[in-house]
């Protein structure tokens, strides 16, 4: 499968990329605001500190970057490479292979061999007048390396050794355990952590300022909580929200609910109503004029079924509903551990079932009924 996949690919993929030019205004912000130097990288202080030293020394180890999506792995290595070689030499010194579609064993052999074979030469003063260290080796970036086959990784081992004198490898991946040990042990490992909320807030505010859009702290907070440390997602949501708010007439300010809608989050009020029907007490910190009708979760089957039907008609996704009910239960101040544990079981079962493609309505219902039973027990 992998090899024929590769064969189909090789004919058409390479010549495409260079033609694509997107006007800056229409560029996705995630690309537009990709850090240019390693000092632009938010958080990840340890990694940045170590890499900064490599800018002054002439040596660089093989590297392995790992961590969850949108934490700056690809950006860091690209920025580092640019700072090492400058704009003129970047092209002939850095090879970026995106493993997600070029993962056949042949690619690893041919492309890397060809690239590594050409001897590096360099002028250190670049056309932009700056001086770059331009150390005497090339960098090969293997992005999304965890989706490379074991065979391809095995082949890489030899290649790394053969060209060790003139190349440095940087493997980038989400799951470090999917990199075979002999490869991993040849590299210095750098762990990228999900962005803390302060760093994320800073970066998002910076982008908002540069785009001249007016965002409240509440919106930033919402972005951070819906994206869970994935800055790429946060930036994408921000751009979508700004697109929508600026194109509505009259232009309106971005509101936290807009972010929720874009992220596919079920409105808090809806989840809280559901929770009440299931018998979970929900604090109401908002002052509502007419207090909602008392529901105590003892209404039995019918109200739960009715509410699940409503959720389905509204089109909310089951995984999203369940993850929000999960959070509400798990962090609930008064439910006891025993009840929470019973709920935990059904959340796990539901997640597995949905991954297996189960019917969404049946499983939201199942979660509702079992949480209800656990809470009343």
């Amino acid at each position, binding site marked *: 499968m992998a090899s024929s996949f590769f064969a189909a690919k090789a004919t*058409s993929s390479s010549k495409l990329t260079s033609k*694509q030019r997107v006007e800056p205004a229409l560029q996705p912000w995630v690309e537009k605001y990709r850090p240019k130097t390693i000092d632009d990288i938010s958080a990840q202080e340890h990694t940045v500190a170590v890499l900064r030293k490599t800018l002054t020394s002439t040596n660089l180890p093989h590297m392995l970057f790992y961590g969850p999506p949108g934490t700056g792995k690809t950006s860091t290595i690209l920025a580092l490479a640019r700072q090492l070689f400058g704009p003129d030499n970047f092209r002939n010194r850095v090879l970026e292979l995106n493993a997600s579609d070029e993962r056949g064993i042949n690619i690893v052999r041919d492309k890397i061999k060809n690239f590594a074979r050409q001897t590096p030469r360099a002028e250190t003063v670049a056309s932009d007048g700056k001086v770059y260290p331009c150390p005497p080796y090339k960098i090969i970036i293997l992005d999304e390396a965890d989706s490379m086959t074991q065979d391809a990784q095995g082949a890489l081992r030899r290649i790394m050794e053969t060209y060790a004198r003139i190349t440095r490898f940087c493997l980038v991946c989400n799951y470090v355990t999917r990199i075979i040990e002999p490869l991993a042990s040849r590299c210095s490992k750098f762990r990228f952590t999900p962005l803390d909320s302060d760093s994320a807030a800073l970066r998002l505010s910076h982008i908002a300022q540069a785009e001249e859009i007016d965002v409240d702290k509440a919106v930033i907070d919402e972005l951070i909580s819906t994206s869970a440390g994935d800055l*790429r997602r946060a930036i994408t949501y921000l751009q979508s929200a700004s697109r929508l708010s600026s194109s*509505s007439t009259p232009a309106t300010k971005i509101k936290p609910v807009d972010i929720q809608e874009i992220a596919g989050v079920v409105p808090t009020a809806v989840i809280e109503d559901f929770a009440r029907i299931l018998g979970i007490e929900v604090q109401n910190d908002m002052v509502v004029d007419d207090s909602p009708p008392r529901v105590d979760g003892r209404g039995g089957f019918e109200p739960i079924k009715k509410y699940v039907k409503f959720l*389905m008609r509204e089109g909310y996704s089951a995984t999203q509903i369940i993850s929000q009910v999960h959070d509400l239960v798990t962090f609930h101040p008064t439910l006891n551990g025993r009840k929470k544990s019973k709920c935990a079981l059904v959340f796990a079962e539901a997640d597995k079932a949905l991954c297996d493609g189960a019917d969404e309505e049946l499983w939201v219902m199942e979660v509702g009924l079992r949480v209800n039973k656990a809470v009343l027990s």
Partner: protein
Amino acid sequence: MSLWVDQYRPRSLDALSYHHGLSERLKALAASGDFPHMLFYGPSGAGKKTRISCTLKQLFGSGVEKLKIDQRVFLSPSKRKIEINIVQSNYHIEITPSEAGNYDRVVIQELLKEIAQTQQVDMGAKQRFKVVIINEADSLSRDAQAALRRTMEKYMSNMRIILCANSTSRLIAPIKSRCLLMRVAAPSEDEMLAVLQSVARRVGFDLPPEAGTKIVEDSNGNLRKALLVLEALKMQSPDLTGPLSIAKPDWEVYCHKVADLIVSEQSPARVMEVRTKFYELLSHCIPPTVILKTVAERVVDKVDESLKADIMHWAAFYEVRMRNGNKKIYHLEAWVVKVMSLYKQFFYNIDMSEFD
């Protein structure tokens, strides 16, 4: 002569009834020059497809309505032929990759690459990009979704993708984070009634409110179903007054019969009887999940409160197994046995826990 659902389908964003906020947003996006990839999701018959084609028209003008339908043949890695129907205009192309079964990745890759490579030929086109509509996106395999992930970033300059799905649960996170999500909820009962009335007016008759309400209640938020029922009723009794009986589809009546059989007697002989009925339904291509859900809901309506949750639990339990298993009938039958034993246990207070 086409059906009313097609004949009176709104053709422009302005003509869309309900969810006006959504229509405004789509209009604004179409005008912005910065049109993103999009994911429309919501229940069946809520108006996703209608909204998508109205958006296309807003983007490209009436040229998108000149459609041609082609059959294309793709080769799987093992050189098997995969035939796919493709609907296209000069500005867009529409595919339903689930037609390709396990080979959806091949279709997605080949087709999208082909489109990405061809520039817009029509110099007068309003947009530089072509739109690719992918129907039933939630049934795309993981492989096909992974193939999309890269393509969506690389070919942004001359292609936009619009995904249409019932739910976002089965789409991988990297795809969702590259799209603008558009949730199309089912219309409310009042909104549905308004659509039925406006269609009636355009056909040239008055819809009595009671009839309208009845149709709406019966159709569970599915506007397509409501319109089909309206047309059928109008054929049967042209004045639409008096007590209306909305004929349930045969399979539904049949499912209800099955439920009644389960509730009225619990015995091995009855299991066999029910099994024959399941076979009958399956051989008429009623999806097994629909059978299970319809029967279960009816059973639950007829039993004691204390049994309802358990019956639904086992329905959920066997539905997933049925999906992963091969023989649908086994799982349907297992569920029936389970329900019957629960029922007996309830009535005779027999301890059956060893069967769990």
